[in-house]
Every structure is written in structure tokens, then in C-alpha cells.
């Protein structure tokens, strides 16, 4: 399967699979939107049947939605939730440390995993105004681990983001503890080219695996600084036929995955 894999799936489908693999069975996962919605559904139906999903609109689900979601507030995501409460109450659980893992997307991520979803360029006269944090900054501040999902382009991987919407490791090391964040930090960055992690001490981003068809060189060439490479760097394990079948059952039109 694996040698044909690159032709059997889209980059988005591989990203969903990589995201699902970050979810351990029994974990409480702050799901968020788009690809992680599919990753949560995939994990629940494969290796993490006891995972629990949190949504910032106030939902806790122990089953994935019965229909494809374009937003977390779509009616099928609310029907059958085990709790539909106030955003404040749900975020309070996140602040308590209730979420083992959180997912966020972003327009820019930097060397220390800081995310920008607010302003490209000068804050006062931005080149591009992005929608903003939503719950992303909270998920990044308060989850036990953070998984970041974005397209791998050099402009999206600057050495320093122009605006920190969602704190990663700041300038590295023990920055999170210094600023008072209670826990967490980025554990994985899942891109169209690779899966990246962070070193234990300096918390600098490093390449963990390149996707089939890509290479360490291509990943480094599309990163805005001299990207470290993990000693055990390897090729990303491609999706299995089962994983692809489930993803395509969840997103038959490929709204999020094509």
C-alpha cells in the first residue's frame, strides 16, 4: 500500500491522519474546526474510541457528529452532545487543565511555535487582516499539548511571526512558565509537507517526518529559518486503506479534504 499511497490520497487526507494519530485513547481533545473535526472522527473510529471532544461553543461530545460539519455550531454537532453549555463554562474546564490535547490552525507559525491568526505586517496598518483568535489563543494557552495544522509555505513559516495571537514557546526555553502560562505548548506541527515537533530543552521546532513524496530538503527549503532535523527523522507513515475509507465516509464530497 505505502508505495502507492502518495497517489491514493490528498495532502489534506494525510494531514487528517497525522492529526488523528496525535489523539491518544481516552484523551479529552479540544477539537476546533475543519481538519481536526475529521481527525477526531477518525481517531474515535480507529485507535481512540474513548476520546472526548470539546468545542468552544460549549459542547462536549463522546461521539463524533453523525453528519459532516462545516461549522462546530451546525445542528448535527449539538444533537447528541453529552453537554451543551455556555462557552464560559466550557472554557473554564479548559483553564482547569481538562483538555489533554488541543488543535489550532494558523496563517503563520514561527521557530518557537508561536501562531499568528490576526495581523500580517504592521498591527496599525496590516498588509492582511486575518479573522483573529476565536478560541485558538485559549486552546494554545491552556491545553495540555497543542497540535498545529497549516499549509507548508515559506511565507507561513517566518523565523518570527509578526503578531503572537496564540502563544507557543515565545522565545524558547522556559518562556511559558516565565509569562505565567499554566501548562502546555505545541507538541506537533502538521503541514502539507511534514510533521514537526519541538526540542525538549529549547523548545525549538524540528523536523520529525517528511510526507511521502517530499523530503527533508524540500521541507527545509520551505521554512523561513535554518530548520533543525530530529536525529530519528523518517518518512511519515502513509494513511491505511481503512483510514482513507473512514475519512471519505465522513467527508464524501471532500469539502475539507480535496
Amino acid at each position, binding site marked *: 500500500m505505502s508505495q502507492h499511497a502518495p497517489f491514493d490520497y490528498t495532502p489534506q487526507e494525510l494531514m487528517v491522519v497525522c492529526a488523528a494519530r496525535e489523539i491518544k485513547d481516552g484523551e479529552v481533545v479540544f477539537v476546533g474546526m475543519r481538519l481536526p473535526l475529521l481527525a477526531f472522527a477518525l481517531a474515535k473510529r480507529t485507535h481512540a474510541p474513548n476520546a472526548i471532544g470539546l468545542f468552544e461553543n460549549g459542547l462536549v461530545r463522546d461521539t463524533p457528529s453523525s453528519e459532516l460539519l462545516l461549522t462546530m455550531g451546525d445542528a448535527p454537532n449539538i444533537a447528541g452532545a453529552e453537554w451543551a453549555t455556555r462557552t464560559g463554562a466550557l472554557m473554564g474546564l479548559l*483553564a482547569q487543565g481538562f483538555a489533554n490535547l488541543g488543535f489550532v490552525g494558523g496563517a503563520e507559525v514561527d521557530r518557537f511555535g508561536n501562531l499568528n491568526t490576526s495581523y500580517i505586517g504592521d498591527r496599525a496598518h496590516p498588509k492582511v487582516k486575518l479573522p*483573529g483568535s476565536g478560541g485558538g489563543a485559549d486552546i494554545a494557552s491552556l491545553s495540555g499539548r497543542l497540535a498545529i495544522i497549516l499549509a507548508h509555505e515559506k511565507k507561513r513559516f517566518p523565523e518570527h511571526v509578526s503578531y503572537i495571537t496564540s502563544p507557543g514557546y515565545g522565545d524558547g526555553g522556559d518562556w511559558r512558565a516565565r509569562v505565567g502560562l499554566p501548562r502546555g505548548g505545541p507538541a506537533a506541527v502538521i503541514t502539507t509537507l511534514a510533521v514537526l515537533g519541538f526540542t525538549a530543552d529549547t523548545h525549538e521546532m524540528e523536523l520529525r517526518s517528511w510526507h511521502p513524496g517530499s523530503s527533508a530538503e524540500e521541507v527545509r527549503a520551505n521554512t523561513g529559518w535554518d530548520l533543525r532535523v530530529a536525529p530519528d527523522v523518517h518518512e511519515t507513515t502513509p494513511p491505511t486503506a481503512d483510514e482513507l475509507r473512514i475519512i471519505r465516509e465522513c467527508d464524501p464530497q471532500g469539502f475539507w479534504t480535496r
Partner: protein
Amino acid sequence: MSEKLMTMTEAIERFVPDGSSVAMGLALEPLIPFAAGHEIIRQGKRNLTLIGPISDILFDQLLGAGCVTKITAAWVGNVSEGLGYNYRRATERGEPHPITVEDHSNYSIAMALLAGALGVPYIPIRSLLGSDIARDHPTMRPHNSPLDGTPTLLVPALRPDVAVIHAQRADTAGRAHVWGGLGICEEAALAARGVIYTAEEIVPPEVILSDPNRVLAPGEKTLAVVHVPGGAHPSPVQGYYNRDHASFAEYHERSRTPEGFAAWLKEQVLDVPDRAAYLERLGVERWQALAIHTHLLAAPVDYGV
């Protein structure tokens, strides 16, 4: 208990004056009061401050129509499509005019409104520490807890002049049942100086009082109740209709340029007298395609004595 039922025109004329701060889109993606927002545009309201968690294109429309000078929110765009072009034009190029933006996260905007609801000056949170949201915010401030010295971010109470909330049902005395995704509806209703409810159905008081745990806020907070079936379209209303994803995609395409947005606004808002005409324009077929196909009734609850 005074009668609070009135027309949309009267409710917006009386309770959304120029320069007021208006909380809308409080349940996040569902229950967005588009009908009320479109009446605000038709009445040409100006210098509004919009307050909300995320806004699924309603804020973008009000920005493009020139009603807004300040945004206090966690996210402004188009949830299923991405960016909001009017938000970009307003912030990047000052079109149609410059605006100020007070960036929040969903947790901080919820805590700001909760502090207003609780009558406390602020709530000290441990989120956003080290972020540029905290650095740039005009009123949030870092403060070490007097209890143990650990860093917190003080989120000051926020009290909107008015919260506009779309409810499944309300009575003429101003009590509403809201269910499904709640977001920050309750915090905003209690923090606001007054609430305008737009409702799918107007029901007798005994329907509302039959389930006091389901009532969002006391009727004394209510300024107006407006009967607007379909008033949240294209956003969803649990148990009434689903999200019209295509409308969000269409808006995304048509609002890409100022000219495109102007044409969209004329066609969808300015030339449409009210929500009934809006739904007629939408067409029965398209409306029926959004209808509830599977009814899921809540288990019975007895408040018996």
C-alpha cells in the same frame, strides 16, 4: 408585566441608537440575528460598536455598510469560507472608513461579559499571557495575583448597551427559550443594559414559564420582542432550520470587491423591506431544503408539585 412585542423597525429605531454598543452573534455560528442586522443597515445606523465572540459574516456585512466604527470580538470572518473581505478593507485600507479593533479570544470575551453579568469589576484569567492580544488590548492588564503572586490577566467587565439575541421562542413579556449551542448568549443578556429578542415563534407566557430553567434571562432585562420567522437565516436555528452553507459561499464570492459587495447589499438588504420579503426572495425550494428532516425531541421534564 408590560407588553414588549413590537415590529423590527420600531425595535431597532428605539433601542439601537447611533453610537451604541451592540452585542450580536452570541451563540457563535447558530442563532445569528441577521434580520435585525439587516434592519440596522437599512436604518443607516452609524458609529456602532459591535461586540461578539466570532461573527459569521454579519459583522462583515455591517462593516461594509458603514454602520460600525469599533469591533470588540475574538474573530470576524466567514466560518466555512475564511476571511471577511469588508473586515479586511476596513482594517487594511480604512474602507468605507477606518475602524478600531479590540481583539479578544472567545474565553476573554466570555469572561468580560461574565464580569459584567456578575457585577464584578474584572475576572483574572491565566489565558493569553505572553500573547500580543494581551499586549495590545487597551483595558486588559497583567497583574500578579495578590493571593499567591502568580501572573494573571485582568479582563475588565464589559456591559453592552444592548444585546440582540435570536431565540426559538419568546412571549410578549420578554422571556425567551433558547436551546442548542448557547455560546455566550446568557453572559451577554445578563451583562447588557437591555436585550432585544428576535424569535421564531411568539408563544403564550405559560409555555415559557413551564420550563424556567430554559429561560435565558429575566424579562425585566428585555427591551423588545420581535416576531421574525427565519430571522437567523443563513445561520442555523436548532429544531427550526439548518445552516444555509451556500449563502455563506455566495457571500464570500460576491463580497470579494467593494462593487460586488455593494450589489449584494442592494439586492439582499437595501431593496428588501423585511424578513418576509427576504425569505420570499430566497424561494420556497431553497428554504425547504434547510428544513428539519429529523425531529429530536428532548425527554419530558416534570416540574410538578
